[in-house]
């Protein structure tokens, strides 16, 4: 049984690709055969974050156009078994995506035994984003605790409930909210929307909160998803998210400001 999951946000720069990389890696670490697909045709990024950019020969668009076989275009991750990447084309544009071809590739991936197919949506609500969400069974909506991001997330939730295969056949997509770049200290000072503010507006279940952290930038630049270094709080937060996504109970963390112990205050 395969699940197609779209990671979407509407707004750019909120952490879709980071989230895709970490969740796909985390699910694969749990032993599920997983593929991450970059739908951001023309602005290829996912391969960088996953550290496989030098191994890209063929891409998603090549497969859609029949110029390459799917199993040739798929890149197997060297660190994590069960993790595969289907990179975007850097030279084409979103018009290369069309419903029939995308559906065919997704079905082929299902037939190859992939349990989780994670679609990294481009920003915006245009064709690329619509193609990424069209066949999704579940959606992880990524937002920053900031009004414009929340409004864009709301817009995307509206599209998810209307412009997807599920919606057109009268069933609902399961939606999850992931709040990234969260800073409890700023919330406390009233400079950032709180988790409850965002939840009240969007009204969908909270999958998790990812704290604001330099670790994200470092791991992106290194091409090593944060979850592979379990010590950072971002890794912990994303692993919690993965467990919750796979149906396990985890208490929400990183919502309250952390009490700094005396040792950390002295030496931190």
């Amino acid at each position, binding site marked *: 049984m395969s699940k197609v999951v779209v990671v979407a946000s509407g707004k750019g720069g909120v952490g879709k690709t980071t989230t895709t990389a970490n969740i796909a890696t985390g699910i694969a670490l749990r032993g599920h055969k997983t593929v991450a697909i970059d739908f951001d045709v023309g602005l290829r990024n996912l391969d960088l974050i996953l550290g496989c950019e030098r191994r890209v020969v063929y891409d998603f668009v090549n497969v859609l156009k029949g110029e390459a076989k799917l199993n040739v275009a798929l890149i197997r991750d060297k660190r994590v078994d069960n993790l595969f990447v289907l990179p975007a084309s850097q030279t084409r544009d979103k018009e290369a995506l069309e419903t029939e071809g995308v559906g065919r590739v997704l079905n082929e991936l299902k037939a190859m035994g992939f349990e989780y197919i994670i679609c990294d949506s481009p920003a915006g*609500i245009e064709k690329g984003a619509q193609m990424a969400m069209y066949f999704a069974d579940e959606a992880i909506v990524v937002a920053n605790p900031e009004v414009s991001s929340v*409004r*864009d997330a*709301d*817009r995307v*939730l*509206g*599209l998810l*409930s*209307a412009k997807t295969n599920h919606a057109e056949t009268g069933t609902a997509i399961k939606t999850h909210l992931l709040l990234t770049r969260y800073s409890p200290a700023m919330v406390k000072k009233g400079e950032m929307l709180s988790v409850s503010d965002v939840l009240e*507006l969007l*009204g969908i279940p909270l999958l998790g909160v990812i704290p604001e952290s330099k670790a994200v930038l470092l791991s992106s630049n290194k091409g090593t998803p944060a979850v592979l270094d379990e010590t950072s709080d971002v890794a912990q937060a994303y692993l919690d998210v993965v467990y919750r996504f796979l149906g396990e109970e985890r208490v929400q963390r990183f919502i309250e400001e952390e009490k700094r112990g005396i040792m950390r205050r002295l030496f931190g």
Partner: protein
Amino acid sequence: MNVSTESRVARAPARSPGRPPAFELKGVMTSLAVMRPHTVDLALIQYQLHEKIANLPQFFQDAPVVLDLGAMPRGGLELPLSALIALLRDARLVPVAITNASDELRPMAVAEGLGVMPYRAARVPGRAATPAGVRAAAEAAAAAVVSRNNQNIENMQAEARALRERAQREASAISEGQTPGPTPGPTRVDSGAPTAAAGRPSMVVRHPVRSGQVIYAERSDLVVLGPVNPGGEVLADGHIHLYGTLRGRAIAGAQGYAGAQIFCQKLEAELVAVGGAYVLSDDIPADRRGRPSQILLADGECRIGPL
């Protein structure tokens, strides 16, 4: 029976003080189908009319129709009026009056048994009477607020003047306890469809209305159980009932029905409008913000009161 009635009528002038009035004569706003021909091609009109009637035959049968010639050059002088009237009667419509017509057509209309209605300025499509018009007015109003250009707002308020006159009349009718039973449909402008919404059930939306979504309850009331989020928009030709927080826009009486109201549990709207008059977020009184409220049209203005 007849005899006694006649005799009572006959005696009435002498004894009229203290007697109950035999009838009321009132100017009421009622729903009428308005047909606005855009062409003198009667064959085309006939073809498209039959198509429309085929869609909703029960609405059209014996429905009174006003002929609005405002879209025709020279007040419709080139239009074969008698033939058009005959065409409508053949289609089992009841043409009752002409409006926006050239004065020279008046004798012909009267000879056909039609009344002549005064000019109806607010009926021009694209004015505040249509949902699009309300939206356009609202967007323009938002722009005007940004530029702090009050003149623009006044201009737009002037645009809705005809509607407001109706509003006053209807508001007073309602305050007299003559609340309409089934929501009367507003007068249709372009489509020529008849307007009585009698018996048309309310539209119920059970999901949140999210940013970018537009819900329009055409010729009926609208009930929304979830919130209306910022950037979301709900419109109804009748009333709007909102059980969640209203953070987006709500437009009741979208086709101009001035008796329409908005009822909401928590008012944090970007804009509320009733029958063409609107209030922007900044102008919502502080004591109503976040509270259960009702919005109605009174004295031509959009008023917000406690629920």
